[in-house]
């Protein structure tokens, strides 16, 4: 095991895949000469050259489309969108072409396309640089959507995404690139399907993904220490397809559920997970499932307002107590 940062894990996955397969290439704004806004492609330009590490103009929709077209001919592009907010500009190519071409060609054309997007609220970046778009991506048939909460998964999910024959969106987090964690030294692949129990427990399940896994773990620690409540924390990790069976299996054990999302509640991960619980294991529930989520506002600039607009470990802790009546 080696300890590395989230950005280093992403860089390692790029490097290994590019060394292995000459048809893997990376493109995006400032990823080459400048090394990437979050350093995730540092050094690759010098190593692989400008044909495979491409600094693009600021034209998100069309460079995404160029990646999609190259993927349709068997290349394995890794397209970085500098901030998830800019992915709105690339939605036509992503949802109309990447996500649909395999289906609408009757399975005759594959699109092994990877898009990496730093998402989430960081530090006072304002409404147009603080988007969380998981609800948008996970609503698109034909895409796979995954989101790493640790350096280990940042590495393993990118490795799997590059090998996958379907288009994959990887949602990273602007505040997590310097997060440290253990990553095995030998090559491995994180599944693009299924969820993972990152803390076993018996009293309730806290479903989380990406940064909210950390809030959930912090809250679970406090619940155990202060109240003797053992919360199970499940990292959803793959948001599309969501692991219906895995989600239900945990709640069949714990009988209570809490979903924590950094996104606003309407039409989100929380509502989707709770719908799955209703459909799969309603009679196993001992209490109504609860969502902890962002407030339904464009993220404000002011530090205090920004902080108030997104959830935190304290809110998760309080919500768990409410569910258990303690």
């Amino acid at each position, binding site marked *: 095991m080696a300890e590395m940062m989230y950005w280093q894990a992403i860089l390692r996955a790029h490097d290994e895949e590019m060394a292995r397969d*000459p*048809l893997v*290439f990376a493109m995006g704004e400032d990823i080459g000469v400048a090394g990437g806004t979050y350093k995730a492609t540092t050094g690759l330009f010098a190593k692989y050259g400008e*044909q*495979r590490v*491409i600094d*693009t*103009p600021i*034209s998100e*929709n*069309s*460079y*995404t*489309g*160029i*990646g*999609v*077209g*190259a*993927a*349709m*001919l*068997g*290349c394995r592009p890794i397209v970085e969108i500098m901030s998830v907010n800019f992915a709105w500009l690339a939605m*036509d*190519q992503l949802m*109309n*072409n990447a996500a649909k*071409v*395999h*289906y*609408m*060609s*009757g*399975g*005759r*054309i*594959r699109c092994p396309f990877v898009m990496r997007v730093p998402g989430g609220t960081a530090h006072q970046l304002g409404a147009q640089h603080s988007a969380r778009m998981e609800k948008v991506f996970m609503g698109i*048939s*034909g895409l*796979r959507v995954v989101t790493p909460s640790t350096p280990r998964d940042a590495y*393993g999910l990118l*490795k*799997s995404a590059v*090998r*996958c*024959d*379907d288009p994959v969106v990887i949602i990273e987090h602007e505040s997590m690139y310097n997060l440290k964690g253990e990553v095995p030294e030998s090559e*491995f*692949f*994180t*599944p*693009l399907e299924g969820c993972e129990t990152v803390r076993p427990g018996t009293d309730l399940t806290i479903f989380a993904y990406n940064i909210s896994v950390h809030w959930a773990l912090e809250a679970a620690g406090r619940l155990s220490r202060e109240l003797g409540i053992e919360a199970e924390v499940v990292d959803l990790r793959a948001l599309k397809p969501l692991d219906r069976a895995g989600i239900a299996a945990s709640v069949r054990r714990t009988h209570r559920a809490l979903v924590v999302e950094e996104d606003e509640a309407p039409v989100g991960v929380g509502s989707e997970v709770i719908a799955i619980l209703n459909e799969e294991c309603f009679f196993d529930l001992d209490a109504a499932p609860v969502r902890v989520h962002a407030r339904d506002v464009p993220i404000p600039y002011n530090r205090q307002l920004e902080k108030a607009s997104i959830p935190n470990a304290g809110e998760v802790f309080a919500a768990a107590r409410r569910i258990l009546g303690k």
Partner: protein
Amino acid sequence: MDATDQKRLLREMLFARRFEERCAEAYQERQIGGFLHLYPGQEACAIGVLEKARPGHDYVITGYRDHIHAIKSGMDPKAAMAELYGKETGCSRGRGGSMHLFDPTCRFMGGYALVGGPFPLAAGFAKAIQMKGGDEIAICFLGDGANNQGTFHETMNMASLWQLPVLFVCENNLYGIGTAIERATVETSQYLRVAPYKIPASQCDGQDIDVVMSEAEKAVTHVREKRQPYFLELMTYRLRGHSMSDSGAYRSRDEVEQWARRDPISIYRARLEAANILAEEDFQKMDTDIQNEIENEIVRFAMESPEPRVEDLERYVYVDGGPKPWLK
């Protein structure tokens, strides 16, 4: 080009015309659903350009008016018609429809419904060709209306910047859906619009297939040999509406009649007849044979083919049995 090839070309254009007319009938009979965009009037464009490219070797992409580009690229017309009928034997197994014909075996990479959407995809094919090192080129056919999308400018910039082997063919039929070009676009000569991107470009008559082939040959050679983009504008006209639901209110009968006198099939037929390559009865026989083939083989195949199974509805959302390296 010898007489045999000339007659073949005329036949291909006439086949395209009759195929599309038969589609219109089938649409009125409700055998074909959805939106249907037909090609009559523009036949010399796709057929002339691809005659000078290497169908099956070069990658071709276009918008939603895609039947003839697909067939000239090498798609079996039976598979095209079966697709329009929504059948499992269709080129896209009935999942695509008129606007989404695909046949990767002949490198016809699809018809797409979002105007301007194929520009970057074509550049992406060229990027893949560049990485793999072949002598193929990518050919992107779109209309003048597509050039007001951001993807036009963004893609021209990147195609030129990265020297991608892609030929952009603009079939300028003077209307973006039902809005005349001069009411939507300041610069009506489309080939002038790529000048800032330093892409070589030219404009020619799109109704005379000899002119189209002559310009296309230069354009294709440029892209293939210099490994650079080229932009070819063909001045053309669609004799039918934008789609089957077109009111026609946006253009005068006079204008349509004037263009009908420049019908690409009539122009070429007259030329072959004047050169004694084709007799009147040859043309009639050709037409009868084509209509028989369409009716007895193509439409019949489409009618008799099975529907896709509802059990397979969710098939093809993801690749079946794709790699799952985490299971190893």
